[in-house]
């Protein structure tokens, strides 16, 4: 102790001494007769006039640094200080020796928003790039970017796919907010040519297994009955498989459809299908940006094993009120968007869609059909307000429903979501977003006829709060952290007879409640110019809380007891650490290697027995009987760009191991069953594959071509005698192409092609006669395949002539789904011949051969 005090005192005295010596030395004078000196020359001059000695680093930048100074006579102290100031140096004068040290470069932060010039929309994932440094950053989900720079002049390129890049010269001395607006390519403005590395390209991004799709791309591709659908478009990507013919359900890298997290403006969507899943609830007109993560899911998201589909709604035009819409064969759409007030600070969008197949049904001569009502609608609304550059509020909602009614029965189902988000900048380096969201899926089924009259309803609701922060520490490190907490209420089914006439009594599947929490932190770190690492950790926790009812089962899945828990009591908890790692090594300016590892967990799943799913399927939570599903995915890929990044090639290979896989026992009863958990069987599954992708982004020719080879298998106790079997989505070969070509500025041709190995199927290998019918004796589960699936769709889009004085712009889209009329089996049945009961034959049911459609889209 004494010793350290002594040392401190000595140091202090030495410092004081230095100071006084310095003052004495400063009496010496130097006369200068030039206005600009190179550092080295100036030092030489001082040495000559004062005989002081100098030490400094042998650095050309320092030696050639220019010092501007007036012709005058200076004290040594003042002159040294001036030099240090101008060249950003530290100095020390001791024993007639002056030493200079270069100070670490001072950084200032340039931050702001990147937006669309004409609509004011945020450009998610747009890039800003320092032309002389070869480094840059991308805008986050709210269009915000933050870039650390050395003070001085910089040339910065802002760019985004489909937009004209803009080069901006900035002279920056202190932290600065700079918002930029980019123009779309088809607006005729002066051409800007960008040179050098553009970080937008896939090569440099430290993420893999992701695909970003613009709502505009979705619009160009042929669609079933002309109904453009993002969920159908993503099924055209390698690694993504359709769950069933025509279905919006999809399987990512061998996972189940319920292992995909679909979020619309952050709110999870629990059933994204309309009309038996042939159409999705996402009205393309209301969307701006869609990103699919097939793996490498960011630590900020979790709760599903296989994928994340992040769908963002448009914010609304901040410049002027515009409208657009379309009239199609299935539905009509209308969207209005524009500013509220004059300051461009507030804007709104309202987008609606309604099907009108029922209007045709009403024209039918068949009485049965005529009395039926069947329709769906969607309504997306969003308002956002910018209080200032530091605070912005977004409020968005989705409301959609399917309605089916006949004279005595009805079915309705739909989603509701609500999201309020507040973007706040604590500083130009710390961006935050606070989200409050609500999401609900419910259905109601009823029959008013006779003694069997009943109502049956089911509901799932979710309230969540999320906090997300991005800290732009320095150009080499971007740290993201945050957390979320959700309350989930499951009301799986409540059925009761209605009115006096009904003989059915009340049946309620017990409701359950759960909390789901998560904390995460992740850093993206650049190490040198070639290597970027991404490492993060997500901690997730799940609680079952009362009121709740838990059945217990013996080893044969027979119910042995029931336990009830009081409201608010946490009676079961699961938690998991989920590491997420990524690496990107740039080999050359146009090629890189990427690798990733992600662990994901899933605490709720769907009672989806069939491959395609149906509206009555319900979500059920993890519980004392149902362990959370876990997945570990490893992926490695090689990325190579050609033709000035206009062609992006990639090959990725992955291996995924999943634990606590859930499948359902044979002839499982999953709906309106209090003892649902007794119908579940548990095991493990694995999937692996290779995905080849080539993406074209020429001005006239755009789209992609992909090939996937993949396998997906399960092994579940109590199913298939415990032997390994193919997952329903195990379709090894898969070729997908989605291409569009602009014949002229007004005419675009597009085509989709897909080929996949036939879906796995279980077929009878024998039959036994039983009282006039046959008992079929089946093969092992999924040991056969349907015939291979292939299909070509074509479309042509013709834009009306643009006239300068006319606001109205029209566009015709004519499409032909399944252009060569392939009869792809939807399912296969074995039927007993009506005329000869001893004869059985196989019959396939197929959907959609040659489905033409015509859609008129307009803008005003």
């Amino acid at each position, binding site marked *: 102790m004494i010793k350290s005090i002594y040392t401190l005192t000595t140091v202090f005295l030495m410092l004081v001494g230095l100071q006084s010596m310095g003052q004495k030395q400063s009496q010496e004078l130097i006369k200068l007769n030039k206005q600009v000196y190179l550092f080295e020359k100036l030092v030489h001059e001082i040495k000559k006039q004062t005989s002081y000695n100098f030490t400094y680093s042998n650095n050309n930048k320092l030696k050639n640094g220019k010092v501007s100074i007036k012709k005058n006579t200076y004290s040594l102290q003042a002159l040294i200080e001036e030099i240090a100031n101008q060249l950003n140096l530290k100095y020390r004068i001791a024993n007639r020796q002056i030493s200079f040290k270069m100070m670490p470069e001072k950084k200032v932060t340039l931050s702001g928003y990147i937006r669309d010039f004409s609509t004011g929309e945020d450009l998610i994932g747009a890039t800003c790039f320092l032309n002389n440094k070869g480094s840059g950053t991308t805008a986050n989900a709210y269009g915000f970017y933050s870039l650390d720079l050395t003070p001085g002049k910089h040339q910065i390129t802002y760019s985004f796919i489909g937009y004209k890049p803009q080069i901006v010269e900035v002279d920056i001395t202190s932290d600065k907010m700079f918002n930029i607006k980019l123009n779309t390519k088809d607006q005729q403005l002066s051409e800007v040519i960008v040179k050098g590395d553009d970080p937008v390209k896939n090569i440099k991004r430290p993420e893999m297994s992701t695909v970003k799709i613009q709502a505009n791309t979705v619009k160009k591709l042929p669609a079933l009955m002309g109904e453009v659908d993002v969920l159908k478009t993503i099924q055209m990507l390698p690694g993504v498989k359709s769950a069933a013919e025509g279905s919006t359900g999809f399987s990512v890298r061998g996972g189940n459809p319920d292992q995909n997290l679909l979020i619309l403006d952050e709110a999870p969507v629990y059933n994204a299908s309309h009309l038996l899943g042939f159409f999705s609830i996402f009205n393309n007109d209301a969307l701006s940006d869609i990103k699919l993560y097939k793996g490498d899911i960011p630590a900020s998201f979790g709760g599903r094993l296989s994928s994340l589909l992040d769908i963002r709604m448009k914010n609304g035009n901040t410049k002027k009120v515009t409208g657009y819409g379309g009239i199609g064969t299935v539905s009509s759409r209308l969207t209005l968007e524009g500013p509220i007030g004059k300051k461009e600070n507030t804007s709104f969008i309202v987008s609606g869609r309604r099907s009108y197949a029922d209007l045709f049904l009403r024209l039918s001569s068949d*009485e049965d059909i005529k009395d039926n009502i*069947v329709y769906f609608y969607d309504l997306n609304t969003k308002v956002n307000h910018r209080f200032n550059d530091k605070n912005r509020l977004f409020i968005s909602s989705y409301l959609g429903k399917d309605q089916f009614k006949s004279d005595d029965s009805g079915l309705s189902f739909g989603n509701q979501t609500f999201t309020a988000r507040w973007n706040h900048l604590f500083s130009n380096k710390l961006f935050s977003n606070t989200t409050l969201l609500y999401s609900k899926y419910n259905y109601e089924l009823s*029959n008013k006829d006779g003694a069997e009259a009943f109502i049956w309803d089911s509901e799932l609701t979710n309230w969540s709060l999320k906090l997300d922060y991005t800290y732009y520490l320095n150009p080499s490190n971007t740290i993201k952290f945050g957390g979320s907490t959700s309350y989930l209420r499951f009301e799986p089914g409540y059925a009761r007879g209605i009115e006096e006439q009904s003989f059915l009594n009340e049946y309620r599947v017990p409701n359950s409640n759960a909390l789901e929490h998560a904390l995460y932190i992740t850093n993206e770190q650049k190490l040198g110019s070639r290597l970027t690492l991404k490492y993060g950790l997500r901690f997730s926790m799940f609680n079952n809380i009362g009121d709740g009812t838990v059945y217990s089962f013996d080893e044969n899945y027979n119910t042995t007891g029931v336990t009830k828990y009081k409201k608010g009591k946490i009676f079961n908890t699961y938690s998991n650490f989920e590491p997420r790692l990524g690496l990107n090594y740039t080999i050359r300016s146009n090629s890189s290697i990427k690798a990733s590892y992600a662990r994901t967990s899933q605490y709720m799943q769907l009672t989806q027995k069939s*491959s395609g799913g149906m509206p009555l399927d319900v979500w059920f939570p993890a519980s004392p009987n149902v362990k959370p599903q876990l997945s570990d995915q490893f992926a490695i890929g090689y990325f190579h760009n050609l033709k000035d990044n206009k062609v992006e090639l990639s090959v990725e290979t992955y291996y995924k191991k999943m634990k606590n896989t859930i499948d359902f026992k044979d002839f499982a009863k999953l709906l309106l069953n209090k003892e649902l958990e007794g119908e579940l069987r548990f095991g493990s599954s694995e999937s692996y594959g290779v995905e080849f992708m080539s993406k074209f982004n020429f001005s006239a020719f755009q789209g992609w071509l992909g090939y996937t080879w993949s396998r997906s298998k399960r092994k579940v106790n109590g199913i298939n005698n415990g032997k390994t079997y193919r997952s329903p989505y195990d379709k090894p070969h898969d070729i997908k192409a989605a291409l569009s070509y602009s014949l002229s500025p007004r005419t675009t041709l597009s085509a989709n092609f897909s080929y996949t190995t036939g879906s796995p199927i279980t077929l009878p290998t024998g039959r036994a*006669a039983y009282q006039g019918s046959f008992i079929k004796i089946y093969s092992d589960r999924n040991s056969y395949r349907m015939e291979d699936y292939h299909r070509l769709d074509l479309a042509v889009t013709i834009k009306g002539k643009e006239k300068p004085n006319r606001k109205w712009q029209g566009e015709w889209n004519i499409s032909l789904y399944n252009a060569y009329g392939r*009869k792809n089996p939807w399912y296969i049945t074995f039927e007993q011949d009506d005329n000869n009961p001893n004869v059985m034959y196989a019959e396939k049911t197929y959907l959609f051969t040659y489905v033409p459609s015509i859609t008129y889209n307009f803008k005003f």
Partner: protein
Amino acid sequence: MKTVYNYILLILLISACTEKIDIKVDTGEARLTVDARITSDNQKHFVRLTESSEVFYNQEAKPITDAIVSVNDGSRTIKFMESSPGFYQSETEFRGLPGKQYELSISNVDINNDGTDENYSAQAQMPHPYSVDSIKMHYDPKYGYGDDEGAYWLVSLYMKDNPEEDNFYGFGCRINDKLVTDTITELTIAEDIYFNGETTKGVDVAELFQEQKDEIVKNNDQITLETYSINQDYYDFLDQLNEMEEGQNPVFSGPPANISTNVSNGAVGFFAVYSITRTSTIVKTE
């Protein structure tokens, strides 16, 4: 679920087509098929034994002859004699008694031709019969779905379900004593999970399709409803048999699987033991 089917049919009406296809499937090993029934009727009961075949075998199932078949009711063994190939009839007439456990034994069968005979057995208890209050007939000119849509005579049931126990029902129908529900999948089946302890309030339990020859109802016909009191195992078997008929539809059904049986040793089929309650009414169509 009717509503859902209705909805789905309506949507698919627009776009679904069917076509016969050729499909190659392997042939599994032959298995003994048992169709055995003991009811509360006082009669000669029978057992039918056949061999399972490949799916596209286009003849009557091969009978299993020369088997030794018997049923034991706990106090005596009743022998079943082969009356025609594959058909075995009880030597004497008897009535199955509620609460009694019956055991079926089959031997002297070598289904896999390995030179060693196999033994098969099955047990089932006869449930107590239901008491039906009454039935009523009513006519619906527009009923059913798809190919089966048309005019129907429907049989309404009036009875009370026993609230104390889990009950399983089967319903068959006779017109002037002729059984019209002669194919197993024509039976209506129900479990009381959604109506335990309720009165049935005239729910329709049998459907007579007026476009099907053997189901046409004429004035003054006697309609007899057969209410079967079945046990849970047999109910599950029938329920699975119905589900299997639907095939693997990507909207509702998962992969099909082998249906349950109460016969041992890898046989298929069922040893059904049930009691029958008959309720009749005369139809007035005019």
